[in-house]
């Protein structure tokens, strides 16, 4: 991963689980973050001892329960005492409620809450950015436009100036019966008119046209993405989520993802994700901070 210059401060809400604590410890020891672990201090200390981690490398802060821990983490970010907020052993819904809170939350004004991840798979020649496999179930046109914007932004942070974004469907044909195909056609025209900037966009495209260089020639479909996609935008959570999980399960995929639309980076991972995945997410959040 890219070398990071600054030591970012991360506030972890209900930092009770082993994977989270271990990932945080690794990042602290690597020198790119300082961490505040919010929760039950004695429980945190116990987990540290069990894992052979020195709890003194962290700042511990007391909270009564998961919701309280979430609001405390958000408060630290709002008061500029933290640069990044991370979810610990809490259900995503509870945690996001604190983020989304109208008065005390962390949302940018009028922003769409969404999620983008970077996926590394040996079978593909570069990183693939996927959206939105975690937050928006059935994005409408405006949400898709926001998703594209976030993914482009993230790709740019990784040094890709004008990422190729494939709007994914089951076919490359436009059909008025598929809302996704209609939305994608509108987005492509917007990109053509520079209303969506800094990308090379095409869709609808199937995965083969998006990621397989031979496919365009074989199918006789001309597309500027042409098997070289940086970003895959999916029509629904139910299509993108199984996609990335399938790649992790069957194609040795590694991911790092981030919530977007917030004033400061928010790291949300499944409670059962591995330590290494959480570590990558922490690193990603520092890149985006």
């Amino acid at each position: 991963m890219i070398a990071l210059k600054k030591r970012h401060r991360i506030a972890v809400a209900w930092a009770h689980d082993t994977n989270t604590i271990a990932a945080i410890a690794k990042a602290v020891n690597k020198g790119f973050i300082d961490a505040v672990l919010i929760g039950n201090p004695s429980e945190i200390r116990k987990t540290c001892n069990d894992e052979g981690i020195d709890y003194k490398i962290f700042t511990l802060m007391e909270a009564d329960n998961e919701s309280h821990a979430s609001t405390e983490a958000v408060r630290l970010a709002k008061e500029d005492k933290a640069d990044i907020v991370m979810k610990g052993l809490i259900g995503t819904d509870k945690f996001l409620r604190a983020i989304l809170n109208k008065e005390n939350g962390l949302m940018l004004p009028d922003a769409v809450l969404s999620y983008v991840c970077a996926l590394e798979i040996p079978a593909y020649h570069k990183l693939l950015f996927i959206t939105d496999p975690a937050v928006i179930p059935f994005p409408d046109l405006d949400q898709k436009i926001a998703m594209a914007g976030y993914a482009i932004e993230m790709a740019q942070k990784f040094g890709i100036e004008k990422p190729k974004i494939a709007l994914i469907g089951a076919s490359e044909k436009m059909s008025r019966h598929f809302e996704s195909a209609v939305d994608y056609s509108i987005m492509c025209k917007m990109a053509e008119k520079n209303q969506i900037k800094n990308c090379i966009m095409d869709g609808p495209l199937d995965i083969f046209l998006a990621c397989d260089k031979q496919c365009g020639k074989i199918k006789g479909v001309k597309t500027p993405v042409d098997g070289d996609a940086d970003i895959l935008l999916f029509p629904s959570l139910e299509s993108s989520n199984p996609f990335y999980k399938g790649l992790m399960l069957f194609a040795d995929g590694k991911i790092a993802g981030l919530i977007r639309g917030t004033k400061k980076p928010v790291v949300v991972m499944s409670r059962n994700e591995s330590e290494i995945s959480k570590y990558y997410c922490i690193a990603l959040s520092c890149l985006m901070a």
Partner: protein
Amino acid sequence: MVLKNMNDLKRLVDGGPRKKLVLAAANDQHSLGAVIRAWKDNIIDPILVGDEAEIHSICSSNNYDITGLRIIDEHETEKSVETAVKMVSGKQADILMKGKIGSATLLRCVLNKEWGLRTGNLLSHFALFEVDTYQKVIAVTDVAMNIAPTLHDKIAIVNNSVACLNRLGYTMPKVAVLGAVEMVNENMQATLDAALLSKMNQRDQIKNCIIDGPLAFDNAVSLESAQLKGIKSEVAGDTDLLLMPDIEVGNVLYKSLVFFAKAKVASIILGAMVPIVLTSRSDSEQAKFDSILLAAAACR
């Protein structure tokens, strides 16, 4: 292959085989003149269906010599239209033209399920203009028939018009999907339809043409205007076909071109088995004649 003016249109049909044109309810002062002129110019072989005595009376008052012209005597208007339409579906005529009868009545017969001229396609109005201030003829659709076309309708309208232009010798006519602005605006359906039609054209789902849009009228017809706005488009400034968002703006454009720009115009209905000439009393004699020319050129 591009038509610069109505003379070029005439050159397409000059010297070719004469098309059979059937005039329904032919006892009509307003349409007979144009039909007879086209006959004398060897463009068409007319068949007049209507009140024979009245036809002769109109012709003699106008000094039309109709010796040798085929007339089928039919006194009842509706019956004369039915006869005319059946001649077309019976492959005895290549063009249907409206005489002394309302458009709605004629079209009802055209759409008759048993003996009509249905093809399963949407019927649409196609107008071809010659304007002094544009470098070639320009087609406009649909200014008179489809009131508020949906995307599905617009696809049919484009396909009808492109097929017609193909028959006029245009291999890849340039189609501008018009809007009030050239950017996509979620509140402006015309701009969204333009995006969808562009994509369908890109994916070869609408063939034999180049579609771009949304384009505002000035960008569509003026390369300079398009360049001033930084618009990069294969169609801008070089449009062959203007696709109108709805009938109101289409009809207003049509009439503005005729009244303010003194444009020449030819119009036909597409989508039936044969081109249909539906001139109205307010059309000039030249427009009626040019419409017959267009119908003859547009025949398969």
